[in-house]
């Protein structure tokens, strides 16, 4: 293995804050009495993503499709089996400990559960100050910075003296966001940031995230299963199915003209709150369960649940290819279906 210097290659053109190339992650499964196969779980298979500065990329898919694993790989919190992650032009795998740590300041994570992700014995101010302390930035103006961060997420600066249990779910999620923003990151990975919140407070957090992005120019990798929320917040969207990206493009392209049958099925399954629209449109109800990631189907991994599946789908894996419209899709028979609108 070649040894590269800690500073890595020179800063890239600066267009993309995150570039994920051909990422693969297998988790070994221990042989057991129940499962004698010992086949690894193919959690992420050949995933490539790019995220521009100040942009939001929505990563959607069903549970178990590998979206959270992809997020952890993108942050360098899990080592990939193969493939590369470049953050601001620097390959994470080529960085030594100290350089990686310096880079980590610029990438942060907000968790799903605001009840589990804050230490109940630390005041909110201490929680928000923790990243500053770890990176030795607290001494200079730390307390002021904490107050500033709390105002930034629309909490009172005096809330710093209180404990997490005194706050509602929505407020706790704001604290988690303040903590993630403490070090002025370029990228924040949001893993289901609003799905555990009460519906009347979701909108407030979604608006806050959008406002912060405008203000700070931070890029978001927004991982979620709720397509309505993803459509609302994302500039671009990637749809993931069983470890692979099956369709990606701008939000207008993916939601307005979905080409992959899986994307079409996902969208049609979202119930509308407009009774008239609900009655008019056709719903696709998929048969059966998603296949197991330890033993994915041959060819196209969606074919076992796909109404368009033909012999070629079992023989040949469809590649994620673009047809000159900036809207790549991995399907042998991509087409727009007008009856789903």
């Amino acid at each position, binding site marked *: 293995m070649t040894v590269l210097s800690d500073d890595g290659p020179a800063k890239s053109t600066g267009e993309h804050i995150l570039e994920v190339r051909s990422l693969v992650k297998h988790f070994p499964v221990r042989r057991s009495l129940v499962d004698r196969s010992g086949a690894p779980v193919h959690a992420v298979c050949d995933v490539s993503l790019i995220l521009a500065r100040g942009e939001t990329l929505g990563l959607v898919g*069903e*549970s178990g499709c590998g979206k959270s694993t992809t997020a952890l790989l993108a942050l360098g919190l899990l080592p990939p089996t193969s493939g590369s992650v470049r953050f601001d032009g620097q390959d994470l795998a080529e960085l030594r400990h100290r350089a990686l740590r310096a880079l980590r300041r610029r990438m942060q994570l907000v968790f799903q559960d605001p009840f589990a992700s804050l230490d109940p014995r630390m005041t909110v101010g201490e929680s928000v100050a923790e990243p500053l302390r770890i990176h030795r930035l607290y001494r200079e103006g730390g307390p002021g910075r904490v107050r500033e961060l709390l105002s930034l997420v629309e909490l009172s600066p005096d809330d710093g003296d209180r404990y997490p249990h005194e706050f*509602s*779910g*929505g*407020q706790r999620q704001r604290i988690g966001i303040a903590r993630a923003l403490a070090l002025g990151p370029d990228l924040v990975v949001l893993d289901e940031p609003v799905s555990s919140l*009460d*519906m*009347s*407070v*979701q*909108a*407030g957090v*979604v*608006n806050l995230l*959008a406002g912060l992005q405008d203000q700070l120019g931070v890029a978001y990798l927004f991982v979620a*299963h709720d*397509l*309505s*929320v993803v*459509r*609302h*917040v994302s500039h671009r969207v990637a749809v993931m199915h069983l470890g692979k990206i099956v369709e990606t493009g701008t*939000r*207008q392209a993916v*939601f307005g003209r979905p080409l992959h049958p899986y994307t079409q*099925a*996902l*969208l*049609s*399954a*979202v*119930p*509308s*709150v*407009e*009774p*008239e*629209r*609900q009655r008019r449109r056709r*719903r696709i*109800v*998929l048969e*059966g*369960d998603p296949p197991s990631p330890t033993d994915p189907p041959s060819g196209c991994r969606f074919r076992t649940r796909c109404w368009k599946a033909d012999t070629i789908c079992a023989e040949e894996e469809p590649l994620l290819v673009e047809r000159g419209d900036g809207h790549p899709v991995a399907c042998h028979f991509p087409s727009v279906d007008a009856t789903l609108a």
Partner: protein
Amino acid sequence: MRDLRVRFPTSDGVVQACDGVSYDLSRGDVLGIVGESGSGKTVSAMAILGLLPASAEVTGEIRFDGRNLLELPPDELRKVRGNRIAMVFQDALAALNPLHRVGSQIAEAITTHRPAIGSSELRDRTVQLLADVGIPDPARVARRYPHELSGGMRQRALIAMAMANDPEVIIADEPTTALDVTTQAQVLEVLEEMRERTGSAMVLITHNLGVVTVAADRALVMYAGKVVESGEIREVFAHPAHPYTAGLLASMPRLEHEGGSLERIAGHPPSLMHVPSGCAFHPRCPRSRLPEPCATAIPLLRTLLGPGHRSACHFAEEVIVSSSDDPSQPTG
């Protein structure tokens, strides 16, 4: 259900989980109860089946087929529960016994109410129920343990168990909340098929307004233990007459609209131990007139223009007019 009130005395004070909830459910009807966590929607359903903890103080009337369920002796109630009124819970993994095969748990639901059934008939009935809820290879699945099934399959098994005795009423508490949208669509379809086959009525409890739109005929919106609005889905969602309902609808990101800022409801849901005075929603309400009447007088649930459309807002008429004026409700 008439004027159901449920209180839980705790060391820190009294939790008023349900505060005068009333509704009717006709045969074959689907009523969606919508609310956030702590709105009292689950407690109101648990009361029907007598599943509340002994510490709960329950008053009011739940009439089922002429009898008040709240006054039935325990063994009489047991004859109703799981037989004529059945329940589908949110968390199928917790609702199923991990140590018993799926088939034997369904069989138990049958034998509890039909002890005389023969063993071959019991086996056939069990497998038939699993087939009815769309489980492939039902005879094989009947021999499986709950952990061997996927979330969607477990939820189907739970529905099969609820349908075991052709209940007249199904109470489904967040039956699809733990599921992905594609599985949610499957489960809703199965519930609908089973309901149509048996003619059962259903109380569908959910926080998801979309699920209610798909599956229910009427909606009941709950806030802080009270019903704040009720009526036909079409009426309630197209012309909400309570600021809370209107706010919820406007705050939802929708697939049909994109970008822009979402309308948000200020503040957060109140604790049931410290419900605000007057209208419980007044501290968060954009229309509240303070102090009178909103912080002083509890608004009653009253009938408005539409058939059976009721709202508990002092200014319901104004809310309904402004929501009708603006068909493109979600801004942006």
